[in-house]
C-alpha cells in the first residue's frame, strides 16, 4: 500500500487537487466545500513532504504517465530543483485555504462558493502540474489551466468591486498572448528537434547551435514565460489583478503564481538550453539582468507613490520578482541558489503581508488605502504585530527570513565580481523601507481610532503561522539554504 503510494507520488500531487476540484462542485454547501478543499490541500502538502523525503534518497524521480516510456509518452520529473516550488505551492495553498474559511463566505455570494473552491483547487493543480511536468507542450496546458482558473478567481472580486472585471480581463488577454508566444516557441523547437520531452530537447539541442529557428524558438519561449512571471516590462497585469481579487485569492496568487513561472524560466535557461552556452549567457547579460534591475527600482518606486495598499504590495511583488530574476541572471551556482532561497522566502513574506492587509480590510469593511489605515495599530494588536514582523522580513532585517535571502544574494553578486549589483540591491532594499515605514507609521503613530474591533482568531490563525515561519526560517535557514544549493548544483551541474 505505502509502496504504491510512494511510487505514484509525482502524479498524486497534481491529481489530488485536480480530482477534488471536480468533487467540490457537486455538493454546494459552504462548510463541506471548504472542508474538502482543506483536506485536499493538506493531502497535497503531505504528498509533497513525502516527495521531499523520497528526493533525499533517489535525487531524481521520473514518472511515466500511463506507463508510456518517456520520450514518446508524457513524463513527470521531480528532482531537487522541482521539489522547491512544489513545496512552496502546496504549503502556501494549505495556509491560504485556512484563511479562506472566513474570507470567502464574506466576499462571495453563497451560491457560487463551491464553484470558487473548485477554481481554487484547479489553480493549485495547474501550478503544481506546471512545475512537475517534463513535457514542453504539457507545460502549456498546465499554464493555461492555472491562468484561466486564476482569471476566473480574480473576476469573483467583482461582487465587492467592479474593477475586478477589468483587471481579470487584462490578465486574461495578456496571459493568453504570453501562453501563445510560448506555444510558438515550443512549435519551432519541435520543428527542428522533433521532440517535446525536455530531457530529449536538452540532448538534441547540442548540435544545433546558431540555428536561427532555435534562437527564435528560445526567444518566444522566454518572452511567453516572462509574461506569466511578470518580469518588469511585462508586469502590467499584476498590480490590478492582485488588488481587486477577493482577499484569499490575492494571498494565494501573490505567493504562488509567479513563483511557478519563475521556476520554469530557470528551467528553460539552465536546463533545456544548457548546451547553447553563448545564447544563454547573452540572454542573461543583455536581457534579464537589465530588466530585473529596472524591475527592482520601478516596482519599489511605484510602491512608494501608491496609496491603495493591496496595489502597493503588488508593486512590491514586481520588485521582489526582480530580485529573483536578477539572482538567476548572474548565473553562478551561488546566485541561482540565492534566487531559490528568495523564491521561498518571498512566498512566505508576501503571503503574510497580504493576509494582514486583507484582514484589516475585512475588519474596517472598506478598501484599504493609506488614509483608512490611520490609527488602527492599537485596535488590531495581533494583526499589526504580525504585519510589522512580515514587513521587517521584506525589508531584510536580521533574524527574519528576508535577511537570509538578501545576505545570500549580496554574497553571490560580490563573489561574481558584481559589486555594483550588490550596491544596487542594497539601495533598492533601503528604498523598500520607505513604503513599509509609510504603512507602519500611519498604523501606529497616528491618533488611535475610537472604534472597537474584535479580532477574529479564525482570521489571524493563518497569519500567525506565516509569521512564525518568517521568524523560524530567519533563525534556522539551513533547510532552505541547503535545498537551494543542491537545486542550483543540479540545475547548472558541471557547467560552472
Amino acid at each position, binding site marked *: 500500500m505505502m509502496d504504491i503510494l510512494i511510487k505514484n507520488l509525482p502524479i498524486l500531487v497534481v491529481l489530488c487537487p485536480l480530482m477534488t476540484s471536480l468533487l467540490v462542485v457537486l455538493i454546494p454547501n459552504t462548510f463541506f466545500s471548504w472542508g474538502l478543499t482543506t483536506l485536499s490541500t493538506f493531502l497535497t502538502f503531505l504528498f509533497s513532504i513525502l516527495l521531499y523525503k523520497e528526493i533525499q534518497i533517489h535525487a531524481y524521480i521520473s514518472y511515466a504517465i500511463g506507463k508510456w516510456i518517456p520520450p514518446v509518452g508524457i513524463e513527470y520529473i521531480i528532482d531537487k530543483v522541482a521539489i522547491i516550488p512544489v513545496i512552496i505551492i502546496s504549503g502556501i495553498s494549505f495556509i491560504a485555504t485556512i484563511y479562506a474559511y472566513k474570507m470567502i*463566505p*464574506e*466576499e462571495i455570494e453563497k451560491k457560487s462558493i463551491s464553484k470558487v473552491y473548485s477554481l481554487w483547487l484547479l489553480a493549485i493543480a495547474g501550478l503544481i502540474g506546471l512545475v512537475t511536468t517534463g513535457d514542453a*507542450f504539457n507545460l*502549456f*496546458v498546465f499554464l*493555461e489551466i492555472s491562468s*484561466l482558473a486564476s*482569471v*476566473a478567481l480574480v*473576476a469573483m472580486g*467583482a*461582487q*465587492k*468591486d*467592479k*474593477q475586478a*472585471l*477589468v483587471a*481579470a*480581463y487584462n490578465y*486574461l*488577454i495578456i496571459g*493568453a*498572448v504570453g*501562453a*501563445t508566444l510560448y*506555444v*510558438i516557441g515550443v*512549435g519551432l523547437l*519541435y*520543428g527542428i528537434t522533433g521532440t*517535446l520531452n525536455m530531457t530529449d530537447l536538452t540532448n538534441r539541442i547540442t548540435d544545433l547551435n546558431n540555428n536561427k529557428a532555435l534562437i527564435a524558438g528560445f526567444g518566444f519561449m522566454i518572452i511567453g514565460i516572462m509574461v506569466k512571471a511578470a518580469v518588469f516590462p511585462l508586469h502590467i497585469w499584476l498590480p490590478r489583478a492582485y488588488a481587486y481579487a477577493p482577499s484569499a485569492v490575492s494571498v494565494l496568487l501573490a505567493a504562488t503564481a509567479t513563483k511557478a513561472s519563475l521556476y520554469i524560466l530557470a528551467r528553460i535557461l539552465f536546463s533545456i538550453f544548457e548546451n547553447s552556452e553563448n545564447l544563454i549567457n547573452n540572454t542573461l547579460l543583455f536581457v534579464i539582468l537589465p530588466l530585473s534591475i529596472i524591475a527592482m527600482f520601478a516596482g519599489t518606486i511605484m510602491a512608494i507613490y501608491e*496609496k*491603495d495598499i493591496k496595489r502597493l504590495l503588488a508593486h512590491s511583488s514586481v520588485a521582489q520578482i526582480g530580485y529573483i530574476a536578477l539572482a538567476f541572471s548572474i548565473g553562478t551556482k551561488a546566485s541561482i541558489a540565492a534566487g531559490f532561497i528568495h523564491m521561498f522566502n518571498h512566498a512566505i513574506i508576501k503571503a503574510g503581508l497580504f493576509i494582514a492587509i486583507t484582514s484589516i*480590510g*475585512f475588519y474596517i*469593511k*472598506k*478598501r484599504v*488605502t493609506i*488614509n*483608512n489605515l490611520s490609527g488602527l495599530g492599537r485596535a488590531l494588536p495581533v494583526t499589526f504585530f504580525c504585519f510589522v514582523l512580515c514587513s521587517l522580513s521584506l525589508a531584510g532585517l536580521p533574524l527574519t527570513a528576508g535577511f537570509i535571502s538578501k545576505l545570500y544574494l549580496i554574497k553571490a553578486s560580490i563573489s561574481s565580481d558584481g559589486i555594483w549589483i550588490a550596491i544596487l540591491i542594497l539601495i533598492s532594499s533601503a528604498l523598500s523601507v520607505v513604503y513599509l515605514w509609510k504603512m507602519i507609521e500611519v498604523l501606529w503613530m497616528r491618533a488611535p481610532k475610537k472604534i472597537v474591533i474584535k479580532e477574529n482568531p479564525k482570521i489571524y490563525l493563518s497569519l500567525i503561522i506565516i509569521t512564525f515561519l518568517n521568524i523560524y526560517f530567519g533563525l534556522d535557514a539551513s533547510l532552505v539554504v541547503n535545498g537551494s544549493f543542491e537545486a542550483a548544483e543540479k540545475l547548472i551541474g558541471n557547467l560552472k
Partner: protein
Amino acid sequence: MISSTIGIWNYWIVFCLMMIGLFLVIGRKNFLKKIVGLTIFQTSVFLLYITFGKIKGGTPPILNTSIDTIYSNPLPHVLILTAIVVGVATTALGLSLVLRINSEYGSIEEDDISAQDLVDYHDEIETGKSIDLKFKQ
C-alpha cells in the same frame, strides 16, 4: 529565390494572421475586438503547427495496407486539438467577462471604462472620502 519564397506560402499566411491578430489585441480599444484579435492570433499558431506536420506526398496518417505509404506527422494535429480546446476556453471566459463588464459599466470601450475607474479611484483615494465595499453583514 522566388520559388523558395512562394514555396513556403503557408508560413506567409501564418505570419500575416499572427501580425493581424497581435495588432488587434494591442491596437484596438474595444474589448470584444481584442478577443477577436486573440482568436486570430491563436489560429495562426494552429496553422503553424499543422504546417510542420505536413510531409510532401504524405497521406493522412490512417494505417493502410501498402507498405510504401508516406504518412504525414500526426503529432502536431493532436497537439493542436489540445490547443484548440484551450483556445475555446479562453475565448469563452473572455466573452463572459466582456458581458459582465458591459452590464457593470454600460460600455466595453477601454477609454470609457478607465475614465469611470479613474473617477472612482480619485474619489476614494485623493479626497480621502472612502466608498464602503459591498461586504456582507
